[in-house]
């Protein structure tokens, strides 16, 4: 069974869509951040796949993925600090833009 780039990119697409669903539907800020992580990983997987199949020698995609990982790890870190700051003041970690059911 031959596994081509489409298979990897397909997995990435599914992860991306699931992450997007999570971001759009969850109220809990931590859940939203986790969904964002899922989307990030999907994008990185996409990049590594391209790197392996299109530019194996230059490894540009891997470099890109390294930067993306670093940047988003930093972002999620900020986000969690912000969630904590909000929690301290309000005792809730729900996003205000999404109305309660």
């Amino acid at each position, binding site marked *: 069974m031959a596994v081509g780039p489409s298979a990897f990119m397909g997995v990435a697409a599914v*992860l991306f869509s699931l992450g997007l*669903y999570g971001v759009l539907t969850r109220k809990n800020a931590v859940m939203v951040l986790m969904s964002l992580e899922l989307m990030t990983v999907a994008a*990185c997987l996409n990049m*590594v796949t391209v790197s*392996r199949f*299109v530019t194996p020698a230059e*490894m540009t995609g891997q*470099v890109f993925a390294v930067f993306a990982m670093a940047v988003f790890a*930093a972002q999620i870190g900020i986000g969690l600090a912000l969630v904590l700051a909000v929690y301290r003041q309000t005792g809730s970690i729900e996003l205000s833009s999404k109305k309660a059911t």
Partner: protein
Amino acid sequence: MSETVSGPVFAILAFACIGGAIGMLSARNTIHAALWLSEVMLAVAGLYLLLSAEYLAVVQVLIYASAMSVVVLFIIMLTLREREGPVRMADFSIGGGILAGLTGVILYMALADRGDRISAMPVEPSGTAALGELLFGRWTLPLEVAALILLVSLVAAVWWSREVDS
């Protein structure tokens, strides 16, 4: 790593990824969701190995599967009101579902359209040392900028998490 990707291994890892993501979204408890997420991260690390990206696989485990998950669990722990922090849906979950589903369908169509135009696995690329040379050679500029980003995030995190003196 061989020149072809092992089908069964890929299938298992793909199943683990997607299953884990679904598990995360269907979990009724944030702790479970966090654990599912780290499972997804481990599976993606496995996929990186299949793609001969050994360094990225290790970094994925180091940063996402462990460090980020630990921090997320920490935050869950610090913000727990009851022991089981329930996951709650926002009210427009149907709209979100439609949007996400649409994205998925479009992506699927795009990929199918692209087909296997690039399907042959090229020879194995150069390894970790070469990646290091690239990062510190050709891509030094983004590396420096990434360092600044980490600094900014450090300042920001300290700014928000320090006790506010009243």
